[in-house]
C-alpha cells in the first residue's frame, strides 16, 4: 500500500463538466500509486472548516503525475474547490481507501456501473480493465451524461437516464435488462438505493458485485471510526460487524455487506 500523505497539490486545470459538476486535474506525487476506486480528502482553505472532503479519483495521468477529480458542488467546500484555477495550490490527503479489485475481473465479463456523482471513479477503473470484456452502464438524471464519451473509449457504453432523454429510461438495472448485458463481475458506485438494487441483481444473475460506499468522514484514515458500514462478518478492526469505509472500503464485496 502506498504511503498516505497530506500535501499541497497544484491545480493543473479546472472546467465545468455539466450543470454544477466540475472537473479538476491536480498534480500530486502519489498519482502513480493510485488504484482505481481510491479517493482523496480535499481540504477547503476556509479556516472555519477543518475536515477534508472525500472525493473519488476519477482518472490518473502518470505522465503528468496527476489525478482527476470530478465533483458536484453541494456545499461550502465543493463551492470553494470550484473556484480553484490553474496554478492554485490545494491541500489533499491520499491516496485513501482500497479501490476496486481489478484482478478478480481478469478474463471475466465485467460491468462498471455508476449513478450520478458515483460515475467518476469508474472511469479509471474501466481504463485499468482494458483488454477485458468491459461494459459501462451509467445512470444520469437527464441528458447531461458527463464522462460518457470517455467511457466509450474503454468499454461498451450504455446509458440510463431518469427522464429517458438518453439511452434506457430508468436506472442502471433497467439498462442492464433492456440491453441484455451479461456480467460475471460488477464494479459500482452511486446512491445507496442503486447499490442495493445492484446487490440484489447480482445475486439474481449470479455475478460478483463490488460496491463503493459513502459515509460522513472525519479522519479518512481509519482512526476515528466515524465512517462505518454494517458487515455480515465481524470486522477486522473492532470485531463488531462495522467496517470502516475509509480504509476497509470504500469498495466492498456486496456479499459482505448488510445493507
Amino acid at each position, binding site marked *: 500500500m502506498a*504511503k*498516505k*500523505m*497530506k500535501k499541497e497539490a497544484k491545480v493543473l486545470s479546472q472546467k465545468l463538466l455539466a450543470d454544477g459538476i466540475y472537473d479538476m486535474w491536480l498534480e500530486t506525487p502519489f498519482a502513480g500509486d493510485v488504484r482505481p476506486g481510491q479517493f482523496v480528502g480535499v*481540504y477547503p482553505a476556509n479556516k*472555519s*472548516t*477543518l*475536515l*477534508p472532503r472525500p472525493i473519488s479519483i476519477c482518472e490518473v495521468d502518470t505522465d503528468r503525475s496527476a489525478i482527476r477529480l470530478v465533483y458536484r458542488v453541494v456545499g461550502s467546500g465543493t463551492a470553494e474547490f470550484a473556484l480553484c484555477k490553474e496554478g492554485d495550490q490545494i491541500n489533499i*490527503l491520499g491516496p485513501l481507501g482500497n479501490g476496486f479489485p481489478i484482478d478478480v475481473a481478469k478474463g471475466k465479463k465485467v460491468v462498471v456501473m455508476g449513478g450520478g456523482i458515483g460515475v467518476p471513479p469508474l472511469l479509471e477503473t474501466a481504463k485499468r480493465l482494458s483488454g477485458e470484456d468491459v461494459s459501462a452502464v451509467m445512470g444520469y438524471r437527464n441528458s447531461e451524461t458527463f464522462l460518457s464519451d470517455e467511457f466509450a473509449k474503454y468499454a461498451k457504453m450504455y446509458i440510463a437516464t431518469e427522464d429517458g432523454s438518453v439511452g434506457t429510461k430508468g436506472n442502471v438495472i433497467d439498462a442492464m435488462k433492456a440491453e441484455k448485458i451479461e456480467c460475471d463481475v460488477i464494479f459500482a458506485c452511486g446512491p445507496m438505493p442503486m447499490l442495493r438494487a445492484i446487490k440484489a441483481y447480482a445475486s439474481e444473475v449470479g455475478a460478483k458485485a463490488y460496491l463503493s460506499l459513502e*459515509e*460522513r*468522514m*472525519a*479522519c*479518512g*484514515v*481509519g*482512526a*476515528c*471510526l*466515524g*465512517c*462505518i*458500514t454494517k458487515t455480515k462478518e465481524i470486522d477486522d*478492526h*473492532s*470485531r*463488531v*460487524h*462495522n467496517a470502516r469505509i475509509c*480504509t476497509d472500503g470504500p469498495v466492498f464485496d456486496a456479499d459482505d455487506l448488510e445493507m
Partner: protein
Amino acid sequence: MNTTVEIAGVKFKNPVMTASGTFGSGMEYSDFVDLNKLGAVVTKGVANVPWPGNPVPRVTEVYGGMLNAIGLQNPGIDVFAKRDLEFLKKYDTKVIVNVCGKSVEDYLEVVERLGDEERVDMLEINVSCPNVKEGAIAFGQNKDALYDITEKIKKVAKQPIIMKLSPNVTSISEMAKAAEAAGADAISLINTITGMKIDIYKRKFALANKTGGMSGPAIKPVAVRMVYEASHAVDIPVIGMGGIANAEDAIEFIMAGATAVAVGAMNFHNPYTTEKVVDGIEEYMKKYGVEDINDIRKIV
C-alpha cells in the same frame, strides 16, 4: 533545554500526547507521524467486551470543529491487548490506555486486565463520553459518583490513573477535587462538549444519535479556562486538551496549568499536527529562552 515532564512517576519525553479516540492506537497515523517523537500515545477507549457504537452518521462538521457520536466502538480488551499493545511495543513512547465502561464492574475488569500489561504506562479513565447512554457520562457529571468510581478503580489499578473529566458540568473545580480526593494520580480534560446540529433542509439531525461531542479549535477557550480552574483547584497534574492545533495552543494550555497536552480533532485536519506541536514547542523554548518546559506552567 528540558522538555520532559513527569506525571505520577512516569516520565514523558515531551508534553505532547494524542487525544483518545482521535489517533486509533497510533497505527493509522504512523504513515504521517513518527510515534517515537510523541510524549505518549493515548489509545481509543477500550471496554471489557467489543462495543458496536452508534449508528451512522456519527460525525459532522461544525464551525471550527466537529461533532462526533462514535459511541465508543471498540474491539474489547482482548483483541486490543493482543493487537494494539503489541503494535505499540515497537515504539519508544509512553502508552496510556483509555478505558471505558457502562458500569463500575466494566471499568474494573478492564483495569485489572491491563494490570499485567507491561506496555501500559498509565490508564486514562473515560467517565465523560457524552455519546453513550448508559453509565459513562453519569460518572463524569456527578461528583459523588466520580469519587466512588475513582476510589474503586484506584484500588485495583496497577498503573497510575488519570481521570478524564467532562466539561459538561457546572463546576470543573469540584469535579477535579473529587477525583483528587478519591486518589486519582492525574486528571485530563476536556472531553467533548455536548452539541447538536440540525440539517434545516432535510429537517433531520445531522447525527443519528441527535447529539454529539464537540471538539476542535472552537472549544479551545472553554478548555483553557477549565484547565486553568482545575489545575488551580488540585495538586495532581492536569493533562489539557481541546482544540489544540499548534504549538502556541499547546503552550497556552501549559501556561494555564497543564503538565501535558493532547491533540485531538486537529489530527483530522492535519495528520502531522502532533509532530508539529512537538517541534513548535522546542522552537518557542529556544526563541524565548525557556530552559525547562516546566518553568512556564502556570506562569500567568
